[in-house]
């Protein structure tokens, strides 16, 4: 219990090593719950996809896959900058941490911006399920169902990104105040895991939503 109260190792841990492993396992466990949550949505999506293949393809064809592809590229880049931020944190390079974190937010912001354009477009074309939906199709209801999944899944994903912005912004402030050191950078590393997870979700969403009609 040497560094019992030095602020870096919390009181419940014996040493920094134990703290690090524990925080790591905690984050992975959290991500597993996230997998289950998105997993349930994907399962429901898959169920209807097999039930209504025709409608799913039709719905997919109304989506702009170029915008989707662009956003995929943007997100992958943001994963890269996030990884660089973690790397910088490991070596306690304060300036680099801040720069890469801000880049990550900017790229994420571009993604959200494109998403807003896409959502607005759906409004204009009456592709928002519920009160603003009409397509000319024998499977209008089922296409509407596709769009329900589109909005719920991409919406939940976007919500995760917005939460990510908040966390990363906090990290920027912490880095600015010089809170990180070679011994203590777990918050950056954990946020990195979270961010990569959010990206991976999109890597699945993109083909499932945008590409299925274009085989």
């Amino acid at each position: 219990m040497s560094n019992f109260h030095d602020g870096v190792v919390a009181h419940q841990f014996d040493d920094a090593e134990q703290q690090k492993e524990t925080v790591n396992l905690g984050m992975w466990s959290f991500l597993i719950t996230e997998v289950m949550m998105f997993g349930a949505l994907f399962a429901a999506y898959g169920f209807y996809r097999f039930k209504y293949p025709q409608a799913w393809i039709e719905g997919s064809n109304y989506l702009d896959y170029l915008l989707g592809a662009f956003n995929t590229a943007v997100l992958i880049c943001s994963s890269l900058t996030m990884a660089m931020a973690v790397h910088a944190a490991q070596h306690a390079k304060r300036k680099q941490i801040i720069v890469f974190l801000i880049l990550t937010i900017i790229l994420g912001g571009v993604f959200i911006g494109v998403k807003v354009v896409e959502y607005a477009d759906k409004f204009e074309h009456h592709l928002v399920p519920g009160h603003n939906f009409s397509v000319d199709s024998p499977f209008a209801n089922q296409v509407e169902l596709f769009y329900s999944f589109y909005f719920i899944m991409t919406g939940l994903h976007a919500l995760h990104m917005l939460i990510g912005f908040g966390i990363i912004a906090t990290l920027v402030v912490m880095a600015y105040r010089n809170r990180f050191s070679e011994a203590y950078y777990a918050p950056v590393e954990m946020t990195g895991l979270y961010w990569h997870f959010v990206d991976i979700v999109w890597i699945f969403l993109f083909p499932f939503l945008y590409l299925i009609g274009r085989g």
Partner: protein
Amino acid sequence: MSTTVEASHHSGTGENYLTAGYGLKSWLMTTDHKRIAILYLLSISLFFVIGGLFAVLIRIELLTPAGDLVSADSYNKLFTLHGLVMIFFFLVPSIPAVFGNFLIPIMIGARDLAFPKVNLASWYVFTIGGLFTFAVVLAGGVDTGWTFYTPYSSTYSKTAVGLTAIGVFITGFSSILTGLNFVVTIHKMRAPGLTWFRLPLFIWAHYATSLIMLLGTPVVAISILLVFLERVFGIGIFDPALGGDPVLFQHLFWFYSHPAVYIMILPSMGVMSELIACFCRKRIFGYSFVAFSSLAIAVLGFLVWGHHMFTSSQSIYAGMVFSILTMMVAIPSAVKVFNWAATMYGGSISYETPMMYAFGFLGLFTIGGLTGLFLGALGLDVHVHDTYFVVAHFHYIMVGGAIMGYLGALHFWWPKMFGRLYPEAWAKLSSIVIFIGFNLTFFPQFLVGYLGMPRRYHVYPDEFQIFHVLSTAGASILAIGYAFPVVYLIWSLVRGEKAGPNPWNAKGLEWTVPSPPTTFNFDETPVVTEEAYDYSRPVEGKVV
């Protein structure tokens, strides 16, 4: 599982976690797992009383065949709120959030859980979810049943389903956070020498419970969120008129909610192992079988959800598979019961109150589990599905099993938590009253259910009245039985005899520290050198 503690049983000063601060803020901002356990104890006790009041109204209504006390609509709201409150706000958090919180760190020789702030957050999340549920009552209640079946819940119900859904959604996160904390703590915070197979079985049970919380809860959270979105935005995921499939909801719901029934019973099983070892003064027979059966229950529990859907549109082949898997999930439960019985065999059993509850658990859980097999049998279930037979089945397990375990735990660890002994004679008397009241309440329900009384109706044919009268009479006795502990436990806080560190002469790290424990539990990290429940060696911390 005692230790070669270089430690100090008393920190001399007399300071403990209860006296570490007195203001309201010292409680509401605490990160001490023991104080958070007390916060949970207070909250869930409140919910237990509320859920109980709904039950009282239900039982009074059912006294007569006519619907004379409340209207059909109000009756729907009563059983819905009763189920919701009891399941999501009492049983799911009960043993884990109170005794798991309090004991896991101490039992494994740690100063706290891995994430104390997350632990506090979980209580706040729980409280917010609870406030939503109060709001639901103010908004006129909800009538979908605790199961939220679509399309009734998503399309037709005119009651506060949205508010309820959000409340349950939020509360789900408190159990995710608790489960996450436990898993990580058990993996990473064990004292030196405390290997997995030296852990108390209480810890194994909580480990398995936490896995279910982590894997199952997010699924029910998202399903209930879908119901909410469907109501608010008029989308049709579960609405057949719009191409949706209401049965999909049942699949998603039971994917969590069958495992969730094990969230409710596994911790009780963990308590059982502690009680039986202590009051038979023996190591649990087949320790590793009991430990692994908890994991087996957690895993198999995820594969049987279809037994709630034999009469839905689920295919007959799926039904057969689920039926067989359901039979299999009973095996690990039976392994436990047989091992406990074998532990008692030849043990020097003493009949203190916690052990009375252990006996109660064994008998009632066995009846509940065996009738579960009746229900799991595809053919028979078509006859008894949605009857009082099912109601009796799960009350035998959840009230007869889980709450008996909860009360056993409450009596066993009460002296540890508050440093006071309760009056044994009163406690024993109330355990007997509860046992009698319980059986009188629920056994008739097996019979009336088998005869065809459907669940969730408040008007019924005259010939069923005798069963309902018996049941209501039993419920009155049960209520008295539950009222006793409230009185004598509170009394004991002021007047009870002071408890030493180890009033039961039990094994286990929690009995080596003072009662009540100090804020950081141990002055010196203990080193564990022996198996759990090694009653062949002298007991530590005994003060007679």
